[in-house]
């Protein structure tokens, strides 16, 4: 890996792998996260309304977005000797079985502090229609060697 903090350019991209969402992947996330909220399991419950919102069927856990963004960031950071230090996200739209979602990011800023070096990375997830369903910002540290 030739990327170092010094030669990473503002605008450099970070890419994640497409993730095909199914009822089984949602169920697997229930077991992996221990989050068994009926939002993710119970079609009858999801036929109801949630205030002003109607989902019409089960939806993926919002935190799956968080896990996929983390996977993208760590896959990028580890080989460069860097460490994911922060991730902030907002969910913009629900994800349903049958959707395929993909994470990506780009470097927006570099900063040296008294004892370390940092990158800011804007991150997002889009579905197969190109709709942005999550966005946020990450901070990656390049500890001094």
């Amino acid at each position, binding site marked *: 890996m030739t990327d170092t903090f010094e030669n990473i350019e503002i605008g450099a991209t970070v890419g994640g792998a497409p993730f095909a969402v199914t009822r089984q992947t949602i169920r*697997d996330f229930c077991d992996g*996260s221990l989050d068994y909220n009926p939002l993710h399991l119970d079609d009858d419950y999801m036929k109801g309304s949630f205030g002003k919102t109607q989902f019409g069927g089960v939806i993926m856990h919002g935190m799956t977005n968080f*896990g996929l963004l983390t996977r993208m960031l*760590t896959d990028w950071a580890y080989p460069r000797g860097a460490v994911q230090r922060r991730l*902030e996200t907002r969910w913009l739209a629900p994800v349903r079985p049958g959707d395929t979602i993909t994470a990506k990011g780009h470097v927006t800023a570099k900063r040296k502090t008294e004892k370390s070096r940092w990158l800011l990375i804007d991150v997002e997830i889009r579905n197969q229609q190109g709709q942005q369903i999550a966005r946020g910002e990450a901070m990656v540290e390049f500890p001094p060697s």
Partner: protein
Amino acid sequence: MSAEFETDFWKDAKSRKVWDEIVPGEPRKTIPYLLTLEAIHAYCRSVGDLHPLYFDEAYAKASPYKGLIAPPAIHILLMFACTPADDWMRSPGTINAGQSWSYNIPARPGDTITLQARALDKFIKKDRLFAVHDNVFFNQHGQVICAGRGQTIRPV
């Protein structure tokens, strides 16, 4: 995962605090949790994250981490593992609106994880009831693993 974890979130629904009863600043009940390699792997597989730092002991030992670790986002699992069945985060219909987390050191298989957690704020916006939760996870040595906060829309 603990064999006694209740996966029916309706079962204790009546014992959980509703939005009106959530007191910002008041600590939530938490329970220590032994983080197993099996639980780490179940989480990792659920997001397709098969990095050898989580799965390959020889690779992990030769890395700067000197052994297997959990991915940063393991707090997704720990949030439910370290809270009891009557915690309001399990109320059916709880909708996650977003989260922010900062990471210090990785959790590792065999760690006993503890959580300090509370509601930090609650508010009404666009006719929806929001609660802000604030959380810090520690390992058995008292070291901070990660700290974060999130917003949920509360069920009505």
